[in-house]
C-alpha cells in the first residue's frame, strides 16, 4: 500500500509509512522490525530504546492517562519512537495488535526464539537510562496474561471497541477507548500492567498502535471532532515537545494505517 501526502503547503508529495497488523507482516518485515528493536536496545544514548521506554514511567514519567491528553500524548510517543526505529532500519513501522479479533498475544511477541536468536519482541531487560537501579526495580519485563487479576475480562474486546466507536464526541471517545486500553494493560499483567514499567515491553507499542489506530478510524468518521479547544495548544512532554494540535493528522506525521488500496501503473 502506498499513499503520498504533502507535508506542508507547496511541498513535494512524500510517501507515507504504512503501519500494519502484526499478523500481516511478511517474514522479512518482521525480521526488520526485530532488527530495529534489537539495534535500538543496544544504544545507550538518546537514540536508544531504553531512553524512549523511560518516557512513559521510570524515570521520566511523562505519559498522560485518563484525561484529554491521553490519545495525543501516546500518538506523539509512538511517532518519536518509530522515527528512532527507522533510523536503525529504514522503513520499519510500528505494527498493531488487534485485540478485538483474537484472545491471545500475537506469536510474534511470544515466541522465545526468532531467526536463531532471542526474540526481542518477547521481552527485554529493563535498564533504566541515566539512572542507577534501585532496590525493587524489575530487571526484565514480564507478562502474566489473565493471571495477575483473574477477574479482568480477557480479549477479544470487540464489544468495547464498538462501544468506543459509537461515541459522538472526542471526550466520550477518549474515555471509552482509554477504558479498554486500561483493560488490555491490566489483563496482560506483569510489568506491562504497571505504568512505571509498561513501555519497556515491545508489546506495549503494538497495543498502543491499535489504540492510535482506533483514534484514526474514529477521526475519519468524525472529521473536526478534536480534543477540547483549551488543550489544542498544550505542549506534550516528549523530546522534542509536540503540541496536541500537531498530533491530530496522522498523514502530517508521515504515516497511515493499512486498509484496502490497490494501484496500477499510470500511462506514459
Amino acid at each position, binding site marked *: 500500500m502506498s499513499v503520498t501526502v504533502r507535508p506542508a503547503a507547496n511541498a513535494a508529495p512524500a510517501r507515507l509509512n504504512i503501519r500494519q497488523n502484526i499478523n500481516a507482516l511478511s517474514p522479512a518485515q518482521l525480521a526488520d522490525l526485530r532488527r530495529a528493536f534489537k539495534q535500538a536496545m543496544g544504544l545507550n544514548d538518546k537514540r536508544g530504546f531504553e531512553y524512549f521506554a523511560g518516557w512513559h514511567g521510570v524515570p521520566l514519567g511523562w505519559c498522560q492517562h*485518563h484525561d484529554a*491528553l491521553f490519545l495525543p500524548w501516546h500518538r506523539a510517543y509512538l511517532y518519536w519512537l518509530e522515527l528512532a526505529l527507522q533510523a536503525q532500519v529504514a522503513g520499519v513501522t510500528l505494527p498493531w495488535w488487534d485485540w478485538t479479533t483474537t484472545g491471545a498475544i500475537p506469536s510474534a511477541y511470544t515466541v522465545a526464539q526468532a531467526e536463531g536468536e532471542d526474540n526481542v519482541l518477547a521481552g527485554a531487560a529493563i535498564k533504566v537510562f541515566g539512572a542507577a537501579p534501585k532496590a525493587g526495580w524489575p530487571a526484565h519485563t514480564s507478562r502474566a496474561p489473565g493471571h495477575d487479576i483473574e477477574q479482568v475480562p480477557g480479549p477479544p474486546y470487540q464489544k468495547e471497541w464498538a462501544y468506543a466507536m459509537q461515541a459522538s464526541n472526542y471526550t466520550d471517545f477518549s474515555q471509552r477507548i482509554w477504558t479498554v486500553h*486500561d483493560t488490555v494493560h491490566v489483563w496482560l499483567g506483569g510489568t506491562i500492567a504497571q505504568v512505571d514499567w509498561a513501555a519497556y515491553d515491545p508489546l506495549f507499542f503494538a497495543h498502543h498502535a491499535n489504540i492510535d489506530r482506533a483514534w484514526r478510524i474514529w477521526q475519519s468518521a468524525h472529521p473536526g471532532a478534536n480534543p477540547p479547544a483549551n488543550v489544542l495548544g498544550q505542549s506534550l512532554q516528549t523530546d522534542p515537545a509536540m503540541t496536541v494540535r500537531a498530533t491530530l493528522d496522522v498523514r502530517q506525521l508521515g504515516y497511515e494505517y493499512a486498509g484496502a488500496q490497490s494501484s496500477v501503473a499510470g500511462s506514459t
Partner: protein
Amino acid sequence: MQRWTSQALPLPPRSSWQRADLEFEGVEHDGASFVLHVFVNNDSADEATPRIAASGYAGYLTVFAHGDCWGDVGHCDITEPVSAFDRRPPHPLVPFNATLEVSEALDALPEGTQQVTVTTLAFNKNGDSAGVLRFSQLTLITYA
C-alpha cells in the same frame, strides 16, 4: 477484594431518559492497577455472583494505575500549577472521572424502581480488601 455499596440514588422514571451513566468522580490511580465489577440493586453481590443482568450486573471498569512510587520524596505528590503562566501538563496522578454506562442494567430492574444502590467489587493483584477503589463521589446521570 474490596466491596462497597452506595447509599440509594434516586432513579428518574424510565420514560424520562434515553441513557444512564454512573460516574465515579475523583478516582485515585496512584496504587496498584485494579478491575471493578459493578452491580445495581444487589447489595449482597460478591465474587460468586453471576455477572448477568438478572443479578444486577452493570459492567466493569479497569484502571491501569501508577503502582509504587520510585521517585524521591514528594515525586508522587500531586502538584497544582504554580502560576497562571504554568504551561506544564497536569500531574499524572490527578484523580479522574470514570464513567460506566448502565442503561441496560437499569432497564433490567423491575418496572417502577425508584432508587438504585450500587455495589462495587474491586480486585487488585495483591488481593487487598481496602484501599483498592478510592474515589470522592458517585453520580447517576441520566440523559433525555
